């Protein structure tokens, strides 16, 4: 703040008041930042727009768009004071606009405004406003392991991990470390163990961001100590002869898939932004491709881990005691990992030239499951899943509003409540077509993707009302003469869909949607760039888990989860149902959507979590998702055989006490 400016405001205003005035200018940025949900897609070059140059260079979350959002919030609420590193963070942003392109595609937000506001704010500060953060002994020691640049206790760096590993009320009593090798990870763990410092590893933080919004926050987050950010462990080697890839824990699912595709192979991966090693270890990779590729432990060949004493352990070590054994009892609830995974070698699978996507629409879940289970038991479909119209709408529509209207039309006019989503080769395709009355082929899917804004705008149209009065609207629209009319009405084109984006981004999105992969359903299933849209300016919490693939059991679980969601006034819908083990087990994801900025919404969500967990644990043959956490490295044979019996009243009482303890911290 200059003398001249101070004099213009009377010269009597104290420095604090001046800062407050400047902070008020952050208000707009805070509004945007509050809507951020930390999907982590800004760290993945999924649109070929390039990556945030500052984030790429400096690594810490603080230098990425999602980190800046947390910094702005922390400054605004006085959680942190400006530091020298904050200046560097703010000024490292080149206002290149990459983050706007990426974030707008997923969340429809404009994070560049946040970065600009932060930059303007810090550049108005005087040197004397800047707090110096001393390097204490712990930081010195950690830096001696990883290098000065790669460890920090600066509050601006620390707060950028809020909501993805630390809770909002946790303060800034942390260190962040970015090791480059397994050996460095091991040394830091040894140091932490010797000095009684808690620590927690973090991948891209997406899963944690979901759980930290719930009553499980204290059980999954870190209250103090060392945060491991693994972005620097970036080994990615493809072994063409053995059809495997060896990846460091910093490699995202998207990066591996991109590399595998270059060699005409595919990896079983999680969402694009997930650090694949972390995802294998945390939930074992839940995917529609599980029908053919299985789950996490079916797909990794070797894993390198650092145990709690800082020893490096490899699954291939001859001396290692059975690393695959675990149990599925309700007492075996682990919400933080016992070991840190730093590297894995994973299988790659062949890609066939004749792969094609078919979506078979249904009105009833019952009928969808009949066909799904018939196919799953016969291993038909490389990727096979039941998805809800809500899931489809959220994925393919570029905004929440369009998704809502699209879903309304799907359910009310088209009677398309569920879809069986199959990726098949030409042999499977014949079978699926023989068994299905109606199907949506790839051309129609392309029309629905590019024409989703237009379809959503037809909510009040006579055309759709007339269609809904047909005896079988699905047949009429997708196989009959009305298909032509629908395709014409949708006017599907990159130009058309790009119009829903801000004017200055329309040219960019026209180019994006002109790329074949953006409407290639097989590619979208492989690279999984769309699921983050579920976190578009609001959050969701998944319920469900692995269940014996029995139709009645699945229907009852779906009903219970819907009723509980409705009871707590949460927007809710089935996400998807996928299959593993020759159709023996199904994974059911049911989603509760909530406003992460509304305390009442949080409260209702938390009550629903507790109630559904208690009800789920009563069901024989169901392993709730919470009980899969951090068991992904174990063999599914240990985890799923036998499936739980369902808790006794005595056990449920103990569970109730457990839940109370978790909620109470």
């Amino acid at each position, binding site marked *: 703040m200059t003398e001249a400016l101070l004099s213009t405001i009377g010269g009597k205003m104290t420095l604090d008041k001046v800062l407050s005035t400047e902070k008020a200018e952050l208000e707009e940025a805070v509004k945007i930042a509050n809507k951020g949900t930390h999907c982590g897609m800004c760290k993945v070059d999924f649109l070929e727009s390039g990556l945030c140059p500052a984030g790429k260079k400096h690594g810490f979350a603080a230098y990425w768009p999602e980190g800046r959002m947390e910094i702005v919030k922390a400054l605004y609420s006085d959680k942190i004071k400006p530091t020298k590193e904050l200046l560097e963070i703010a000024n490292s942003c080149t206002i290149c606009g990459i983050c706007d392109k990426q974030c707008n595609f997923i969340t429809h937000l404009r994070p560049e405004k946040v970065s600009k506001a932060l930059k303007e704010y810090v550049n108005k500060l005087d040197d004397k406003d800047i707090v110096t953060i001393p390097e204490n002994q712990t930081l010195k020691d950690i830096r001696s392991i990883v290098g000065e640049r790669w460890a920090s206790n600066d509050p601006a760096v620390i707060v950028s991990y809020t909501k993805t590993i630390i809770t909002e009320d946790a303060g800034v009593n942390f260190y962040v470390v970015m090791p480059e090798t397994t050996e460095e990870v091991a040394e830091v763990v040894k140091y932490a*163990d*010797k*000095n*009684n*410092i*808690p620590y927690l590893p973090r991948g891209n933080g997406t899963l944690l961001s979901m759980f930290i919004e719930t009553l499980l926050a*204290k*059980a999954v987050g870190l*209250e103090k100590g060392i945060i491991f950010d693994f972005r620097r462990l970036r080994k990615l080697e493809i072994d063409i002869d053995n059809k495997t890839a060896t990846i460091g824990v910093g490699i995202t699912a998207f990066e591996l898939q991109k590399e595998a595709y270059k060699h005409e192979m595919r990896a079983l991966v999680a969402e694009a932004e997930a650090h694949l090693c972390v995802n294998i270890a945390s939930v074992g990779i839940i995917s529609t491709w599980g029908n053919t590729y299985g789950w996490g432990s079916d797909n990794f060949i070797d894993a390198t881990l650092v145990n*709690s004493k800082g020893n490096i352990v490899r699954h291939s070590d001859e001396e290692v005691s059975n690393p695959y054994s675990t149990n599925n*009892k309700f*007492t*075996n*609830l*682990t*919400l*933080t*990992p*016992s070991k840190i995974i730093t590297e894995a070698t994973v299988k790659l699978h062949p890609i066939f030239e004749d792969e094609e996507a078919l979506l078979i629409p249904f009105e009833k879940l019952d009928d969808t499951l009949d066909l799904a289970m018939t196919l799953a038991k016969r291993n038909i479909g490389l990727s096979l899943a039941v998805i809800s119209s809500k899931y489809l709408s959220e994925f393919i529509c570029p905004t929440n509003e369009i998704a809502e209207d699209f879903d309304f039309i799907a359910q009310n006019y088209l009677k398309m409540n569920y879809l069986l989503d199959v990726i098949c080769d030409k042999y499977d395709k014949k079978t699926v077509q023989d068994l299905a009355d109606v199907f949506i082929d790839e051309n129609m899917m392309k029309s629905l993707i590019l024409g989703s804004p237009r379809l959503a705008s037809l909510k009040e149209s006579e055309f759709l009302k007339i269609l809904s009065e047909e005896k079988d609207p699905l047949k009429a629209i997708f196989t009959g003469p009305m298909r032509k009319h629908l395709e014409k009405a949708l006017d599907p084109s990159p130009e058309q869909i790009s119009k829903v984006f801000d004017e200055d981004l329309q040219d960019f999105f026209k180019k994006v949607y002109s790329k074949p992969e953006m409407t290639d359903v097989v590619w979208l299933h492989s690279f999984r760039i769309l699921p983050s849209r579920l976190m578009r300016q609001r959050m969701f919490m998944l319920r469900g888990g692995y269940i014996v693939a029995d139709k009645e059991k699945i229907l009852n679980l779906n009903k219970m989860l819907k009723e509980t969601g409705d009871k707590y006034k949460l927007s809710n819908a089935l996400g998807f149902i996928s299959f593993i083990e020759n159709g023996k087990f199904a994974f059911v994801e049911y989603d509760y959507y909530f406003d992460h900025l509304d305390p009442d919404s949080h409260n209702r969500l938390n009550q629903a979590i507790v109630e559904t967990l208690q009800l789920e644990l009563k069901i024989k043959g169901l392993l709730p998702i919470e009980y899969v956490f951090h068991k992904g490295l174990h063999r599914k044979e240990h985890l799923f055989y036998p499936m739980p019996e369902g808790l006794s009243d005595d*056990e449920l009482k*103990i569970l109730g*006490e*457990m839940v109370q*303890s*978790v909620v*109470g*911290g």
Partner: protein
Amino acid sequence: MKFLSEEWIEKAKKIATEKLDPEKDLKKATTSLLNIIENIPPDGKTVYFYLSVKEGNLQEMLINQSGSLLDKNAEFVVTGNYDTFGQIFKGEMSTLIALIKNRVKIKGDKVKALKFVKPIDKINDCLRELETEF
């Protein structure tokens, strides 16, 4: 008074016997527990802290560094570092959260152990009344 010192143990035994109700607080529990507390500053030594209750009455509260308390064959053995036990004793973290967060490892029947979580938390609540230096 230093946490886990001989003096602390003596006072802890006294206060627990005086203040804890065998029925209300300790649920007439009969069990034994060995806490193995690792990395105690400044030299990183390990301390073994054993306690047993019978019908809700505190029987033994013993501490040593030799490991001989392992011979007591406690029903449950809980292992963790000094900071974690400190957080539990200070009431900053519940025993169960420590377990779920992998901060402590437990050996023994987990279902049974969970039944004793509340009585153990009661003991910790009671011991918190001691002026303890960590």
